[in-house]
């Protein structure tokens, strides 16, 4: 959990530096990260906030950018369905791309032998530490952001941390094809607005896995 912290901090750092660069005050930047805590959606709506766009434009844009989390929440739902409404709200509210991927890597199926308590502790420990490191990055940006040259490209540590999560997940034929289809879809849809390329790639990657699996079942019969 602590291992990916440099990636999270670097990512948060560059996110907040661009929020500040777009004209958000330091104190507003701080609360934006605390309340909304969604890097990709914060970056997407920042130009709209700076340009005084109507609220519904801002919120709708964020909703489209966040739509991948609707799929993610469906994936973790069977793992946490026996908790109360407010507990589930608490569990879901801090989910991130990275913690979701790590959790599914560790607990691929809802019926695991280690017990529900272990799942919950792993998930909450991870999302809380990610939240903490994200806020650290935001604070570094607020206090020292102007001393860090953009040309250093520190934000690249974020994608690098994700590479370390992608590779171990591509371990058999279905996963390889799913990943290739997702990558191809991403290249084709990269310039869609609202970062829709993420959701398109997710849908394409999952569909590809379904098709590959059907094909190999046919061969076995």
């Amino acid at each position, binding site marked *: 959990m602590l291992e990916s912290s440099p990636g999270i901090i670097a990512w948060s750092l560059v996110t907040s530096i661009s929020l500040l660069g777009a004209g958000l005050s330091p104190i507003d930047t701080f609360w934006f990260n605390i309340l909304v805590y969604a890097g990709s959606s914060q970056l997407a709506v920042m130009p709209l906030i700076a340009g005084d766009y109507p609220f519904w434009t801002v919120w709708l844009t964020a909703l489209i950018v966040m739509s991948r989390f609707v799929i993610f*929440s469906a994936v973790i*739902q069977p793992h946490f369905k026996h908790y109360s409404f407010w507990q589930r709200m608490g569990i879901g509210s801090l989910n991130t791309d990275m913690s979701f991927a790590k959790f599914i890597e560790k607990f691929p199926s809802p019926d695991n032998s280690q017990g529900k308590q272990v799942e919950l502790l792993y998930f909450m420990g991870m999302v809380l530490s990610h939240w903490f490191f994200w806020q650290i990055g935001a604070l570094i940006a607020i206090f020292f952001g102007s001393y860090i040259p953009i040309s250093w490209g520190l934000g690249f540590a974020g994608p690098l941390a994700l590479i370390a999560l992608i590779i171990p997940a591509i371990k058999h034929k279905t996963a390889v094809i799913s990943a290739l289809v997702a990558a191809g879809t991403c290249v084709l849809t990269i310039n869609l607005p609202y970062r829709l390329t*993420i959701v398109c790639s997710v849908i394409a990657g999952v569909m590809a896995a379904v098709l590959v699996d059907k094909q190999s079942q046919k061969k076995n019969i």
Partner: protein
Amino acid sequence: MNTVDLWIAFFGLMLVSLLSRGSFLLVGSKFPIPRSIHEFLRYAPTAALIAIVLPDVMFVKDPATQLFELKLYSPQLFGAIGGVIGFLVTNSILATIILGMAFFTLARFFI
């Protein structure tokens, strides 16, 4: 935006974050997802991560048009190769970041 508008925007965005992250987790028992589909949603996280990483590795954003353009000879691509090597050799996220940043920074001086 003035301060009041900004905070209205923030609270709306907070709700968007909570609702999107919570959605199925909150109402899922009323809309059960068939197990057969659920099994394949396992591939969702990797696909999402790929779509987040690729634009940073294989593309550059044109500052004028804000569109992504394919660029394969870039410090980012060398950095990603360094990261992949780092992971395959050590299996550690930290080594992936360190070797990737080293390759990226070196390539920055040569490209």
